[in-house]
């Protein structure tokens, strides 16, 4: 895990999670044979893709040693703005301006988050909490005053709910986001600098890294990922709606951490995040299908996270 640029991306957390996920599938499949049916697996991939895109952004911020709590309302804001713009200009291709507007919202929120953390030096946990509240305030204000259209653009619908070869399109988006992120983290100067700033920001500054710029860039990436997830979710649900991101914040962070990324920053592999997303998605789905009561679900989540993360840290210590 320490070898950040190690050749094989499949590290211990990834392998452990993949094993855990396979176990879940097996146990689930034993109870419900439909688990191995292509529609079910495709459905899991689709659910996972939204979380996966959120987690991709969360991972960048966590690699920087920070946290982004503004995910829920960034998602909602991007989706709402996107559909509102679509509503203003409903012509077929022109309406895709909405997608650009949504991405711009995500980037702008990320820039504000990054500004507070990098320039004002406010702890990210507090600053992003505040920006999240402000975003909610802005949305309540505007959607309360104006009848904003909630209809997604054709592109959003196509990517969010369409399928190709019976694989949900959103999975392709997730794959694309993953490849881009993997490329950024492994092969670009920005990726290197993200790891450096996350490892130790003073050292990064003393090494000539513009650490503030890197922080802002990291939060912008996260904001764009949240925005994409929000717009895709609007495409999936056929509408934008308030509080659409509430259920993605904590699972997004949990997926990253389950994947072995350190919350102190600087350490972690993207493959683990992907595996973490799949595990959480499967778990949620299986517990839901089993009709487990909410209390049991929460307890199972907690126990799984403690067990897995505890396993990594103890393993690292005693190996």
């Amino acid at each position, binding site marked *: 895990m*320490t*070898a*950040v*640029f*190690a*050749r094989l991306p499949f590290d211990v957390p990834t392998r452990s999670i993949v094993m855990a996920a396979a176990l879940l599938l097996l146990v689930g499949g034993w109870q419900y044979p439909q688990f191995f049916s292509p529609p079910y697996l495709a459905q899991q991939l689709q659910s996972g893709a939204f979380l996966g895109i959120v987690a991709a952004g969360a991972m960048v911020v966590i690699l920087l040693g920070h946290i982004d709590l503004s995910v829920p309302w960034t998602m909602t804001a991007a989706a709402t703005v996107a559909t509102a713009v679509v509503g203003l200009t409903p012509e077929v291709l022109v309406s895709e301006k909405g997608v650009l507007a949504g991405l711009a919202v995500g980037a702008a929120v990320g820039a504000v988050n990054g500004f507070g953390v990098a320039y004002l030096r406010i702890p990210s946990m507090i600053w992003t909490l505040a920006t999240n509240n402000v975003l909610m305030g802005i949305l309540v204000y505007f959607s309360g005053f104006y009848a904003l259209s909630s209809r997604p653009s054709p592109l959003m619908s196509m990517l969010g709910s369409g399928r190709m070869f019976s694989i949900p399109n959103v999975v392709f988006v997730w794959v694309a986001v993953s490849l881009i992120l993997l490329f950024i983290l492994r*092969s*670009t*100067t*920005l990726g*290197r600098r993200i*790891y*450096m700033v996350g*490892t*130790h920001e*003073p*050292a*990064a*500054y*003393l*090494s*000539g*890294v*513009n650490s503030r710029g890197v922080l802002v860039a990291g939060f912008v990436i996260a904001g764009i990922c949240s925005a994409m997830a929000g717009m895709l979710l609007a495409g999936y649900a056929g509408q934008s709606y308030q509080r659409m991101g509430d259920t993605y914040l904590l699972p997004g962070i949990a997926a990253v951490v389950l994947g072995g990324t350190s919350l102190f920053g*600087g*350490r972690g592999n993207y493959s683990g995040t992907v595996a973490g997303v799949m595990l959480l998605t499967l778990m949620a789905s299986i517990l839901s299908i089993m009709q487990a009561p909410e209390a049991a679900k929460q307890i199972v989540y907690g126990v799984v996270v403690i067990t897995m993360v505890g396993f990594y840290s103890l393993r690292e210590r005693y190996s």
Partner: protein
Amino acid sequence: MPPPMQYLESAREGALIDAAPLLQLTGIGKSYGGVVALRDVDFDARRGSIHAVLGENGAGKSTLMKILAGVVRPTDGAISLDGEAYSPTSPADAARSGIVCIFQELSVIPDLSVAANICLADPPRTRLGLIDRKRQAQMARDVLWEMGVGQDIDVSRLCRQLPLSKRQIVEIAKAVIRRPKVLILDEATSALTASDVKPVTDLLRRLRDEGTLILFISHRMHEIEALADVCSIFRNGTHVETYPTGSRSSDEIVQLMLGRSLTQVYPPKYQVHATTEPNLSVKGLRWNGKLKGIDLQVMPGEIVGLGGLDGQGQQEILQAIAGILRGVGGTICMHGTPLRARGPGDGISGDRRFALVPEDRKYGGLFLPLSIRANLTAPVMDTFARFGIISRKAEAGTVARMIEQLQIRAENLDHPVETLSGGNQQKVVIAKWLATKPSLLLLIDPTRGIDIGTKQEIYRLLRRLAEEGLAIMIYTTDYDELVGLCDRALIIYDGCVRAELAGDDLSEHNILKNALNLGEAPHSREAQQ
């Protein structure tokens, strides 16, 4: 294996002679994974002596001390203390048995007061079981007065606010107040300024005379010669020899430590051409009350040292030049034009390149968990990237040249840099900055805590770079280095240049005299010997 008890006859006057050793180690071994740090070490030390432990970095001294202090547990062997089996499980446990260690990394708590730190392990309590602040302050003052530094330190201040040297004093006071049977100092004097050294050495002698065993690790040969009764030399995890101080020549000692002889530590100096234009010229540098109008110049090809007591503004001069400080007054010019850097990043490109090698490689110089490769190319990765995409091939070429130039010994460049030894880590820090091809190189204490072999390599490298036309400015706490390495030394006192020494004037005596801001130097360390 060391000849036992040979040195008894020659033990110095004042050291108590005792028939049985206080501390006895037999067959101690320690390995981390596959790496052997200590191998079958037998070692005795007696009460009432100052026992120096010498060796290169990685020789196993620190591991040995950590075992004694209860920080790590040996894989083999047994220890007896005062005739009883001793196997501590933690520093607290060790302290209860009477062994207290002062580590190289300071263990004062920044956010607690001096008094709280000194009484940290066993604070006085009120009847309610709460900490009695008044008595605590009194105890702290008492021990500081006993050490002869009571007038210098206000026990109610937070340690965060003290300069490094004073924190080191607190660290020692913290240990002394516990009246240990065995006091271990692991490089614990390296941060002391000259004025603080004397009270500490006096104190150690007094403790010795009271029967304490003092185990002492230092890279400062003077100190060892001045202080120690007995020396033990370690090499590659084994105990090579124990001898009474003074019975071996410096050359012999170096040879024992290295396993080979050291021809000459410092490379020869060479003459700077006075006609060249200065690379760096600083006028009237002021900052925050700590720098009070500094003027200086550095020529290409010259190594200029900054010396003086710790905390007189030497570091701040270098930091001000590199743009780390804010609100700096005066002018800083490189190649005759003003330099207004906002940090080390501004020295990487352009036609006025400078590089700052920071003080602490663990804190400011390296990304410990990241790969050696990523560390080496941190400041220069833009040069082999297009549109932000790194070319692995171009990077590999650069890295290979750097490894070659500095002779960095690394098995696998993709391993984390923290797997390297301290000396090689320091080489990585220097290498990454040389890769930016600076014309001005600023270094802060680059050889601190490094073994003598690597030190020598670094000295040679710096000299070679100077010959190639670099201007080098180095702040060092080691007066040997100022004398041996530098062409010129500026002695800083209270934010001003007290003296500029060069040629024959550049002697340890003159440095000390000026560092203390005295006409004469009454407490010079030569005088103690």
